[in-house]
């Protein structure tokens, strides 16, 4: 993030580990008071916490957009398949019209839903930038044991001050964080 900064201004990433959401929320307040913006803080947790619980900025998820686009694509595909392709090679059956509307709803419904579900599924991965093919990322394995890991980035010269301030919030661990391949 601060690629250009060197020496004492070079950014360092730390992790503070908590076991109670109350403590984590307080720690985030402390960080903010020191002047670390929300975008330099990242929280990892073993269970989902709503943004409001930790006092983090509320941001809507982009996944519904994917769902809508997927549904639209699926709908178009179904339209093409049901109303388009029979015209290319008309075969009449059972004295019924070539393009019958009521049964088209079935095809339209199924393919719309299929498009929507696939897009939603893919949306999760694209939006969360998973899998991490673009390099290392910070992680604390205790997260899967239910801990709340607060990662933050500070210039090197401020690190000590931040650590001292955070000590009051009762973290079980404060340590420099290294990116790893997961």
């Amino acid at each position: 993030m601060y690629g250009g900064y060197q020496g004492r201004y070079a950014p360092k990433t730390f992790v503070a580990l908590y076991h109670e959401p109350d403590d984590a929320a307080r720690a985030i307040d402390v960080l903010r008071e020191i002047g670390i913006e929300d975008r330099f803080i990242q929280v990892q947790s073993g269970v989902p916490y709503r943004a409001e619980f930790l006092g983090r900025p509320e941001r809507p998820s982009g996944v519904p957009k994917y769902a809508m686009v997927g549904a639209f694509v699926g709908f178009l595909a179904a339209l093409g398949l049901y109303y388009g392709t029979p015209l290319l090679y008309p075969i009449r059956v059972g004295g019924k019209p070539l393009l019958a509307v009521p049964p088209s709803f079935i095809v339209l419904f199924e393919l719309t839903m299929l498009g929507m579900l696939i897009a939603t599924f893919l949306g999760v991965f694209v939006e969360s930038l998973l899998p991490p093919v673009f390099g290392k990322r910070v992680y604390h394995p205790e997260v899967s044991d239910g801990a709340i890991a607060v990662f933050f980035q500070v210039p090197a010269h401020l690190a000590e001050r931040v650590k001292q301030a955070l000590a009051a919030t009762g973290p079980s661990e404060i340590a420099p964080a290294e990116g790893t391949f997961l």
Partner: protein
Amino acid sequence: MAEMDPQHTKWVMVIDLDRCNGCGACVTACAMENNVAFTGEEENAYGRGMHWLRIVRYWVGEWPNVQVRFMPMLCQQCSNAPCEPVCPVFATMHSEAQELNIQVYNRCIGTRYCANNCPYIARTFNWFDYEWPEPLNFHLNPDVTVRRRGIMEKCTFCIQRIRAAEEEARMEGRPVRDGEVQPACAQACPTEAIVFGNWQDPNSKVRELAESQRGFRFLEELGTEPKVIYLSSQKHEF
């Protein structure tokens, strides 16, 4: 009609039940003409006979006043065929030229849905690859495909004969004459109970017979618009 327009042929069959004596010649002739597989006694008894045409037999009345009735039953070549729209791969479809219900053997994948949906139980299925025991293998008709296992088949109104007559008529530049096309069953019937012809030809024999008061279509109330017309002076309802 200078030339027979393929758009204007509508082949129909008239079966006079008052003439039918249930001899089964039509069944045999049909099997010979159409390379219908020979499934053997045991299989046949289990309901796996491949006959495209069968004689449906009923006993009417209480003993001792019992009457027997016969009704040759075959594909009715419905205009609104229930078997057609249910096929996922268009293996059964409507021929617009002859207004026949066509079974495309090569397309069939064997879902057997068409057979379930046929109110006339007219379709048969190739349960196995059947062999023709000697000397029956010599009779195979070269004009008709031999079907392999796993596909559906049914009466075609002897389409190979229809096509042959149509081609000959076209070469001679004339319409197909009435009585020129005769399916195997009609040809074999000793009492001439089965008559075949073009409905669009106003002078055809089928037209004349079909206008008889005795005429009815089997399961007409289902709206399938069958192209087989039965003639009977007796009640044929089950």
